[in-house]
């Protein structure tokens, strides 16, 4: 319960802190003590040095994820273009083999703006909320088309940042909560689904299925901003869709699990993470137990699994097949 509240607070913008001394288990205290030794620190140093020589980290999870993301979006496109009628609509609302699905935040906008609660919409929203209760923010990394573009933009950003052409301005993550509240209030107050006007998720999904439009310029602006000024800014600091999934799915059984026994605290995972605050527990002396669930803001993109040289992180479903 305390872990969950802490994870929720971090999702809502709190900076992660070192847990109180009474929350550390005896077993993990032993490990933390061992990790403070000169020998352990030298090992960490060696791993960091090794990484500099290696060409590139494996891309196993990234390839899987891109394949799923592209397949889902392609299914939307083909359902319309080839009349497959398998997954009709777009990411704001759809029918999967006839079953209603609705994005939680988009549906909330509609309900707040129209002051109507329609059965079909409630069914669709509840279905997605149910999936989210199980999978958390998985939508972001595995389905959202903006995530993929943003990932490519991120590669460009990192390249330019290395050459000091791009900067990485950091924002307060509470901005995302403020944006969520502002758009909810705007929907209720104006009676328009204001957020849908600029939602890169909705815009891209519609552009894929129904063809491109001028509104893609907005998405291009967002990407340019991310490339030049702030790494992954939209997903990190702004997107209310991501925040909704993070909060609704904050206790999801599908999550990344961290095992300190394998960890050398070299920080490879935090360097690639979209939401590095969830991996704060991989820092030296932070994990309160030998095995800890990664927080609710995690998109399950599993980049950390790809880059971790020692297999300290794994994607698991709570209560199912947890090895070692």
């Amino acid at each position, binding site marked *: 319960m305390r872990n969950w509240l802490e994870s929720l607070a971090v999702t809502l913008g709190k900076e992660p802190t070192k847990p109180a001394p009474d929350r550390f288990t005896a077993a993990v205290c032993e490990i933390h003590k061992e990790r403070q030794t000169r020998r352990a620190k030298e090992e960490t140093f060696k791993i960091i040095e090794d990484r500099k020589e290696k060409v590139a980290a494996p891309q196993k999870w990234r390839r899987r994820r891109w394949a799923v993301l592209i397949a889902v979006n392609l299914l939307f496109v083909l359902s319309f273009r080839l009349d497959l009628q398998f997954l009709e*609509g777009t990411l*704001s609302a759809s029918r999967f083999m006839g079953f*209603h699905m609705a994005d939680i935040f988009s549906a909330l906008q509609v309900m707040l703006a129209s*002051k109507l609660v329609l059965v079909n*919409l409630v069914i669709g929203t509840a279905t997605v909320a149910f999936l989210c209760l199980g999978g958390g923010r998985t939508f972001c990394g595995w389905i959202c088309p903006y995530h993929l573009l943003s990932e490519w933009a991120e590669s460009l950003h990192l390249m330019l940042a290395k050459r000091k052409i791009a900067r990485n301005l950091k924002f307060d993550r509470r901005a995302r909560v*403020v944006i969520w509240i502002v758009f909810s209030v705007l929907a209720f107050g104006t*009676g328009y689904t204001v957020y849908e006007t600029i939602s890169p998720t909705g815009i891209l999904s519609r552009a894929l299925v*129904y063809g491109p439009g001028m509104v893609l310029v907005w998405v291009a602006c967002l990407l340019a901003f991310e490339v030049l000024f702030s790494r992954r800014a939209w997903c990190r*600091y702004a997107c209310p869709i991501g925040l909704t999934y993070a909060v609704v799915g904050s206790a999801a059984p599908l999550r990344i699990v961290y095992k300190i026994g394998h960890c050398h605290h070299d920080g490879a995972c935090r360097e690639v993470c979209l939401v590095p605050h969830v991996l704060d527990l991989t820092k030296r002396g932070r994990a309160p137990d030998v095995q800890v669930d990664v927080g609710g803001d995690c998109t399950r993109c599993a980049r950390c699994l790809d880059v971790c040289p020692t297999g300290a992180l794994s994607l698991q479903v709570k209560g199912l097949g947890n090895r070692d």
Partner: protein
Amino acid sequence: MAENKIPLPPNSRSPARRKFLRSLALASGVAGAALLGFVPVLRRLVQRLRPPGAIDEHEFLAACIKCGQCVQVCPVEAIRVADLGDGFGVGAPYIEPREQACDFSCDGLQCVLACPTGALTHHIDYPHQADMAVATLSNPDSCLALRGQGFTGVARGDNFRGKLRYEEIDRWNPIPLREHPYDLEVCDLCVRQCPIQIRIAQCEAGSPPSGDPNQCPPEAAIRLVEVEGADGGRAWKPEILSGCVGCGVCEMVCPAEPGCITMTPLESRRGHA
């Protein structure tokens, strides 16, 4: 965005304060960008013909989740998705009747059934219950019937992509207008192809499709009235009647360029539950 242009007071050197101001600028920038969508809506820069069953314009834009499921089910692909210029209406469905009107060839109002949010109200079941626009004879000077002329050929030329369902040819599959040439002594395409008039004729002949008498429109939508032509000869004037639902088929089929009839979209619609 504008983070760097904000004039900073002298005590703003602290990184925490800069980060706070930057974050504030981000949040206001995002909200501000979205609120720009208010401009076309408030100034009524665009007035769209919405699909059948659309509730009043303001409520419609509130209720529409911009998923485009109505677009997908339309057999004549009459429904399009709005772009940037529509402001808050980005992603909302509309019809450009001169290009492709709603000819009700699905009979059962598939777009209404597809709508997950009730932005297209489920309270209407039949085409004649729709209330999308008012048709007006906006360009009588080029009307062939008003000149007493007939029409021979394809209505909109060989390159026109619009489709129409001809029940006598194939009830289920609309065909391109260009594949259906006409030879008319007096041009009456706007009346002849009006889906409401076609349905009325079927009902009067005692054969409403699927035998459902509720399908029969209670009022006529359009007719030709004989008038005296400019040269004193016989001429006919299209007259729009109270049964018109604004589907736009007359606007699409009109062979004159520019078309004689245009749809004026309604903001307040009868279909409202």
